[in-house]
């Protein structure tokens, strides 16, 4: 019985990784569509919103089923607890990718102001954080996430700088208000995605060691 359960647990983790990768892909592609002002690419991100939602529901149900039928303990229990958090974070990341893709239509009529400011750089850093947090979930390697807190500080600083830069362009010319508001929102979405990477990392730490830590 235990063997069957552990096989199921491996499958659960594999499914969760697929979902985390889809969330990450939606964010990466959403940002790429914004950078290139590519409405078709943006539409391809929006089209996957149901898919990621269905994945979340399916994995969540699988977790409940494993709990109800096996009463898992120790690391087995912690893997399931962590998984429930990872799928929530991944869904949010995917949805922020979709939200960013949704801005592309409005932001494709004219060239970007100041080459999107620091948004492309910020997106690269956020996606690296997500990659490391998800890789730690996959490989149990906690070293990947040990500096996540200071990386999150960098993200917060970038969001703040984009906010100030955006305000400056708005004051220069009221025609920039709509575009810069979108930029500020995108920076906010990216910052939230970094927070979700930290949440994943916190739960991976719990999964591995049983200790609760705060990463932010």
């Amino acid at each position, binding site marked *: 019985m235990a063997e069957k359960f552990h096989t199921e647990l491996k499958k659960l983790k594999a499914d969760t990784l697929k979902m985390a990768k889809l969330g990450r892909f939606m964010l990466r592609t959403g940002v790429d569509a914004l950078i290139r002002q590519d409405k078709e690419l943006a539409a391809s991100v929006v089209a996957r919103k149901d898919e990621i939602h269905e994945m979340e529901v399916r994995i969540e149900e699988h977790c409940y089923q494993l709990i109800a039928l096996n009463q898992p303990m120790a690391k087995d229990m912690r893997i399931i607890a962590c998984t429930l958090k990872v799928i929530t974070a991944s869904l949010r990341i995917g949805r922020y990718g979709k939200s960013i893709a949704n801005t592309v239509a409005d932001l494709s009529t004219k060239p970007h102001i100041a080459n999107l400011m620091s948004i492309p750089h910020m997106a690269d850093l956020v996606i690296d954080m997500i990659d490391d947090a998800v890789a730690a979930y996959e490989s149990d390697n906690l070293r990947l996430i040990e500096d996540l807190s200071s990386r999150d500080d960098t993200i917060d600083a970038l969001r703040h700088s984009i906010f100030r830069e955006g305000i400056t362009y708005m004051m220069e010319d009221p025609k920039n208000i709509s575009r810069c508001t979108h930029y500020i929102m995108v920076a906010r979405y990216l910052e939230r995605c970094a927070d979700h990477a930290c949440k994943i990392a916190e739960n991976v730490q719990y999964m591995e060691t049983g*200790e609760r830590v705060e990463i932010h």
Partner: protein
Amino acid sequence: MSESAIITTNNLNLWYHEKHALQSVSIKIPKNRVTALIGPSGCGKSTLLRCFNRLNDLIDHVKITGEITLDDENLHAPATDVVTLRKKVGMVFQKPNPFPKSIYENVAYGPRVHGICNKAELDKIVEQSLRHAAIWDEVKERLNDSALGLSGGQQQRLCIARTLAVEPEVILMDEPCSALDPIATAKIENLIERLKEDYTVIIVTHNMQQAARVSDYTGFMYLGKLIECGKTRQIFEHPKEELTENYITGRFG
């Protein structure tokens, strides 16, 4: 374990002939708490339990070294009276074993052996013990019926009442639910929860979910050794030892 201990073993070793069944076991059993001993078959958990009321004395060729204290008194000191010890440390076994007597006589037997003959006093002890064991309402109309006519779960609660009648400090339970159905098991588990207000309970079980449900502390034993002992939540949420982890997640045992 920072709580005050009622039973302490220090470097306890036990051999059955050549078999080294308990190896340097040092454990503290906190007072008024439920401590569960878990581990695969043959790991020594029942042997350890039976040390606490010297039940192993009844077996030939047993050798014990190390120390066991109850209330700071050495259980193997020459002055220790085994009858008094077993009054203080009661035991409930895997299979309910009521005497082939009436329900009343089963409970009154112990107090009588210890010299209580007054009928009114015995009546009081019988009622209190049966109430404490959560079986009074089910048997109060038929106290003179044979105990053997009760269901398995009722028999087991009667055996608990019989143990309580001599006012023990510690109750040892060796797989008390393994012969019972889930409903009778739930009744015994609820009872264990209530018993710890007045007694210290030590339970041996191979049912890990049961250990997790009923106990405050859990000790994991393997091949005669106490591998890890700590708060139940810690043992089942994040055990420190890999062996414990592997056992409670069903990787062996």
